[in-house]
C-alpha cells in the first residue's frame, strides 16, 4: 500500500497506552510487503490523468447528443438559448452544455455513492474501529477490491484503509463538479472525459461501501448459494406489524433487525423493503422481505400494509412522507440526506419519541442514530399496527366506477404519463363498470403518480390502477436471491479462459432501475434467454428484483431455475447498487487472475484488455437515476458497452460507433505492431434500444470481441445470427464485418454465409492480439 507523503506532528499525543509529547513523524512512503505487485503508471488518477485513454474511447465511440432542453439555465447570465449552435452568454454551445449535463449527472451519481460509502464507513469505524479488517469472501477471494486496487493502487485491508480511499474519491468528486462551473471546461470531449472519470470514482465509492458492509455485517461472502429471499406483497404476513424500509443505506435497517433479534421479536414483526435497502436487508437477515423496486413505493404505501415507514437515502420518493400520513403510518427519517423537515429527535428519550409517533402528535421524526431508529421503529410498529389495521387508501370498485364518470377526457393524464398509457380509454371503460383496461395498465404503470397530479378533476388514477390490479399485487410471491457479493477467484480461474476465448459467449449484466417501458417482465425474459444460451447473467438492484419476479413453466423463478455461480448459464445477483463493482470487478479479475495482467494502478492496460477481450455487456433496461448514469460511466471507462431501454434516451447522450466507417475499428496487433481492422466489436459503448427484441439482438452482438478465438467467435456468431433471425426475420446485414477467417463461421451456416461474404467482397484477415495502446506492442515494426 503506497500512500502519498504523510506528515504527522503533535505537541502532545494521547493514545490508549501512552502520552507522547512533541511527536514529529514524517513518512515519505508506506510500503506494505504483503502486496508485492508493482505499482502501475496511474495510481490515484487526477481528473485528467486518464484523458488520453478516454479520448481513445471517445474517438471510437463519439457522443451523439439529444438535448432535452434548448436552454441553459445554470447561471444568472442566462437563461441562454443554445438552439442549433448558438453560444450562451459564457460562450458555451449546446454540445458543451449537453456534455456538461452528463458530467453533472455522473458527478451527482458518484457523490451519492461516495457519500453513502462515507456514511457507512464512518459509522462502522466509530463502532468497530479503524483496524477492523475486511473480509469479502475469505479464502475464496484474494483480490478483494479489484476496482480500488486498479484505480487507486491501494489494497485496502481495514476499515481505516477505506477511509483513505474515500478521501481520494471525495477530492475527485469535488474537482469534477467544479469543472461544471460556468466558465470552466470549454470542450465537450473534455467534459465527457471528466464524466468517465466520475464513473471510475463512482465504482471505487461503491466498492468501498459494499466491502465495508459485507465485511462488518457478515453479508453473503461471494456465495453462489446465497439464500433465496421471499419477494412480493403476497409474502407479507398481514397479521404482523410491518416495518417498511425504503432507500439504499442498510445501516438503520441493521438497527431495526438487531433490536428485533435482541428482543426475540424477529418472528413477531415483518421487515420489508423497497429499492436497494430491501436487497441489503435480505443480505443481513434472510427473513427480511423484498417488496419491489422504486416504482412500487406508492403501491406499497397506498395498499396500507405498512405500519411504520423508515426512510433512508436515495431513490426515496419525496412524497413518501405525505403518502404515509394518508394511511396513518408514522415515518422515521433516518438519513442526514433526507431530513424531510422533521424535527431531529436523535437525542430525545425513546419513550417520548414512540409516544409522539403513536399518538400521531407528529407525523414523523428524524433520528440519526441507527440503534435508536431500531428501537423506535419496532416499538411504534407494535403499537400502531392494531390501531391502523392495515388501513389502505385504495378506492372501492364502486367508487372507481362512480368517479370515472367525472372524467373529462382531457387527456392530460396520458400526456403526463411517462409511459403514454391510455388512461382516458380506461376511464371510459371503468365508468361503464369494466375495469379490465385499468387492470391492463397495472403491469405497465411505473407508479410515478404524474397522472394524478395532472388530472383537473383530481381522480386518484394510480390508485384506480392499483385497485384494478390488486389481485396480482397482493398475490405476488416470488424469490430473489440475496446478493452474493463478489465473484470468487476460483470461479474466475475456471470461467476466465472460456470468456476471453469466446467460448462462454458473453456476460450480461442486468442492472439498474425500474423505469421500464412496459413493466419488469422484459428483464426476466431477456435474462432467461441469455441464461438458457449459457451466457453468464449477473444482476443487481431493482433489475435483480424484476428478474426474480416471474416464473417459468415449472413455476420456478429465475434464481431457482439457474445456478448462482459465475459459470455458463449462471444467474448471479451480486446485490444492491453498490454491489455493481463486483461485476466490473469480475471483468477486472479476468484480466488479473486469469491473464495475469498487473492490476495495481494500471487502469489503461486493464481497460484495454477488458474492452478487447471480455465480452461483457451491461443492460440497464429501466435506468433512470444520476447514479445509474455514473454506474454506466464506470463501465464505459473500462470499455464495457451499456445498453439502456427507451427511457434511457433521456440521458440525452449516446456513445456510438459507426459500423459503416472502417477506420473506426482499427487496433494494434500487440505481437507485431500491425494495425488490424477488427470490425465493430463492440459496436457501441452506450446505446438506447427500443424493444426487448432489439435488446436481445444487440446484447448478443455486443459480446463479440476482437480477441475471440475462431471457436469462440463462431459460438458468438451463432447466437447473434439466431437471435437476429428470430427477432428481425432475416440474416444480419453486418455479418461480414465479424468474420475474420472462414473458421469463425458457425459450421451449420457455412454455405449461406459464404455467399454473403462473397457478395460483400469479404477478405480474410488475421486474429490479432488486440490493443489500443501503442505501448503494449511487444515488437515494434521496424
Amino acid at each position, binding site marked *: 500500500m503506497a500512500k502519498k507523503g504523510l506528515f504527522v506532528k503533535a505537541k502532545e499525543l494521547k493514545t490508549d497506552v501512552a502520552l507522547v509529547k512533541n511527536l514529529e513523524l514524517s513518512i515519505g512512503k508506506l510500503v506494505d510487503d504483503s502486496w508485492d505487485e508493482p505499482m502501475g503508471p496511474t495510481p490515484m488518477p487526477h481528473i485528467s490523468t486518464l484523458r488520453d485513454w478516454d479520448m481513445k474511447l471517445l474517438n471510437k465511440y463519439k457522443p451523439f447528443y439529444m438535448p432535452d432542453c434548448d436552454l441553459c439555465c445554470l447561471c444568472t447570465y442566462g437563461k441562454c438559448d443554445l438552439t442549433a449552435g448558438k453560444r450562451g452568454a459564457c460562450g458555451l454551445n449546446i454540445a458543451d452544455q449537453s456534455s456538461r449535463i452528463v458530467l453533472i449527472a455522473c458527478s451527482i451519481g458518484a457523490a451519492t455513492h461516495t457519500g453513502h460509502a462515507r456514511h457507512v464507513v464512518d459509522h462502522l469505524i466509530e463502532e468497530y474501529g479503524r483496524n477492523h479488517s475486511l473480509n469479502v469472501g475469505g479464502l475464496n477471494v484474494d483480490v478483494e477490491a479489484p476496482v480500488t486496487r486498479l484505480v487507486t493502487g491501494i489494497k485496502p485491508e481495514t476499515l481505516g484503509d477505506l477511509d483513505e480511499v474515500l478521501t481520494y474519491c471525495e477530492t475527485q468528486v469535488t474537482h469534477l463538479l467544479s469543472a461544471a462551473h460556468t466558465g470552466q471546461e470549454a470542450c465537450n470531449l473534455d467534459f465527457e472525459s471528466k464524466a468517465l472519470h466520475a464513473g471510475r470514482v463512482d465504482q471505487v465509492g461503491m466498492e468501498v461501501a459494499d466491502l465495508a458492509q459485507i465485511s462488518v455485517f457478515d453479508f453473503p461472502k461471494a456465495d453462489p448459494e446465497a439464500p433465496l429471499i421471499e419477494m412480493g406483497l403476497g409474502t407479507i404476513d398481514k397479521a404482523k406489524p410491518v416495518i417498511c424500509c425504503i432507500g439504499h443505506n442498510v445501516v438503520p435497517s441493521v438497527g431495526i433487525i438487531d433490536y428485533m433479534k435482541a428482543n426475540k421479536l424477529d418472528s413477531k414483526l415483518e421487515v420489508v423493503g423497497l429499492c436497494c435497502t430491501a436487497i441489503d436487508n435480505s443480505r443481513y437477515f434472510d427473513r427480511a422481505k423484498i417488496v419491489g423496486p422504486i416504482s412500487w413505493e406508492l403501491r406499497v404505501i397506498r395498499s396500507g400494509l405498512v405500519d411504520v415507514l423508515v426512510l433512508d437515502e436515495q431513490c426515496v420518493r419525496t412524497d413518501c412522507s405525505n403518502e404515509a400520513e394518508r394511511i396513518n403510518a408514522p415515518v422515521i427519517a433516518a438519513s442526514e440526506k433526507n431530513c424531510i423537515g422533521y424535527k431531529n429527535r436523535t437525542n430525545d428519550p425513546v419513550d417520548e419519541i414512540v409516544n409522539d409517533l403513536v399518538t400521531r402528535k407528529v407525523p414523523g421524526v428524524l433520528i440519526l442514530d441507527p440503534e435508536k431508529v431500531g428501537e423506535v421503529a419496532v416499538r411504534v410498529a407494535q403499537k400502531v399496527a392494531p390501531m391502523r389495521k392495515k388501513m389502505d387508501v385504495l378506492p372501492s370498485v364502486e367508487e372507481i366506477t362512480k368517479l370515472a364518470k367525472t372524467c373529462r377526457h382531457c387527456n392530460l393524464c396520458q400526456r*403526463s404519463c411517462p409511459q403514454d398509457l391510455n388512461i382516458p380509454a380506461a376511464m371510459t371503460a371503468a365508468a361503464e363498470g369494466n375495469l379490465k383496461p385499468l387492470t391492463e395498465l397495472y403491469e405497465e404503470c411505473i407508479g410515478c403518480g404524474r397522472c394524478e397530479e395532472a388530472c383537473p378533476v383530481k381522480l386518484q388514477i394510480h390508485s384506480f390502477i392499483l385497485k384494478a390490479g390488486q389481485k396480482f399485487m397482493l398475490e405476488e410471491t416470488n424469490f430473489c436471491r440475496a446478493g452474493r457479493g463478489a465473484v470468487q477467484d476460483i470461479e474466475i480461474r475456471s470461467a476466465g479462459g472460456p470468456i476471453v476465448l469466446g467460448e462462454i459467449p458473453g456476460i450480461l449484466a442486468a442492472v439498474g432501475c425500474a423505469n421500464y417501458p412496459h413493466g419488469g417482465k422484459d428483464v426476466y425474459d431477456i435474462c432467461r434467454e441469455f441464461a438458457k444460451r449459457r451466457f453468464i447473467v449477473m444482476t443487481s438492484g431493482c433489475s435483480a428484483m424484476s428478474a426474480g419476479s416471474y416464473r417459468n413453466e415449472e413455476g420456478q423463478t429465475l434464481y431457482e431455475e439457474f445456478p448462482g455461480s459465475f459459470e455458463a448459464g449462471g444467474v448471479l445477483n451480486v446485490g444492491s447498487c453498490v454491489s455493481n463493482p463486483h461485476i466490473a470487478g469480475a471483468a477486472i479479475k479476468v484480466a488479473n487472475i486469469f491473464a495475469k495482467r498487473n492490476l495495481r494502478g494500471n487502469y489503461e492496460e486493464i481497460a484495454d484488455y477488458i474492452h478487447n477481450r471480455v465480452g461483457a455487456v451491461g443492460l440497464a433496461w429501466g435506468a433512470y437515476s444520476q447514479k445509474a448514469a455514473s454506474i454506466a460511466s464506470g463501465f464505459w471507462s473500462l470499455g464495457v458497452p451499456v445498453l439502456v431501454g427507451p427511457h434511457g434516451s433521456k440521458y440525452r447522450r449516446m456513445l456510438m460507433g459507426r459500423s459503416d466507417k472502417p477506420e473506426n475499428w482499427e487496433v494494434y496487433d500487440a505481437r507485431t505492431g500491425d494495425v488490424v481492422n477488427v470490425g465493430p466489436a463492440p459496436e457501441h459503448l452506450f446505446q438506447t434500444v427500443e424493444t426487448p427484441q432489439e435488446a436481445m439482438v444487440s446484447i448478443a452482438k455486443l459480446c463479440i470481441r476482437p480477441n475471440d478465438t475462431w471457436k469462440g467467435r463462431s459460438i458468438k456468431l451463432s447466437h447473434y445470427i439466431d437471435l437476429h433471425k428470430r427477432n428481425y426475420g432475416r440474416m444480419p446485414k453486418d455479418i461480414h464485418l465479424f468474420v475474420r477467417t472462414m473458421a469463425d463461421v458457425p459450421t451449420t451456416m457455412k454455405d449461406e454465409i459464404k455467399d454473403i461474404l462473397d457478395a460483400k467482397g469479404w477478405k480474410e484477415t488475421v486474429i490479432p492480439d488486440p490493443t489500443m495502446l501503442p505501448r503494449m506492442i511487444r515488437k515494434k515494426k521496424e
Partner: protein
Amino acid sequence: MMSCEPWQCAEIAATKKANPITKPEVAVAMIKRAARPILVVGSNATERSLEGKLLIDYIIDLAKASNVQVVATAHMVAEFLKRGYEPADFMSAMDIGNRLVDPTWQGIDGKGHPDLAMFVGLPYYMESLILSGLKHFAPDLRTMTLDNLFHPHASWSFPNATPKVWAENLTVMTSKFKGGN
C-alpha cells in the same frame, strides 16, 4: 391551439418550434419537393391501430406509393418482411439519428445525405429527443413527423389528433402519391 401543444406536456421546445402541418397535402408537397427523403419507422408501428388497421400497414401503403426509403428501427424489419415489404434498411433509432447528424454520411444507399427525414411510430419521448438532436446538430436537415402527436422539435409536425384523423391523413397522403395531387 391545444392540438399544437407538445403531446407529452413537458416536451416543450424553445425558440425553434415545428410548423404545424395543417393538411396532409402539405406533407405530400414537402416529400415531393425533397430530393432524398427517408422515413424512419419505430416500434409503435405494430402497437397503434387506427380504424382497425395497424400503423405499419398504412406506412407500407404510403411507402409503396411514394417510393420513400423506409428505415425500420428496433425489430420492425421483421414486421415489414412478414408483410412482404422490404424496407430500404434497418438499424436502431439511435444509429439512424447519429448518422443523420453526420454531414458526410451519404445515406443508406451511399448516394447522398438525406434532405428530409420523416419519423413515425417511435415512443414519443425518444422520437422527440432524436428530433432535438437533429434540430441542434443537423440544422440544415428538414425533419417531419407523421404521427398524430405534435412534435415541437421537428421542422414540420402534424398536430395532435385522434386516430381517425390520423388514418385519414395517412390515407390521403398515400392517395396523393398514387396519381393524386
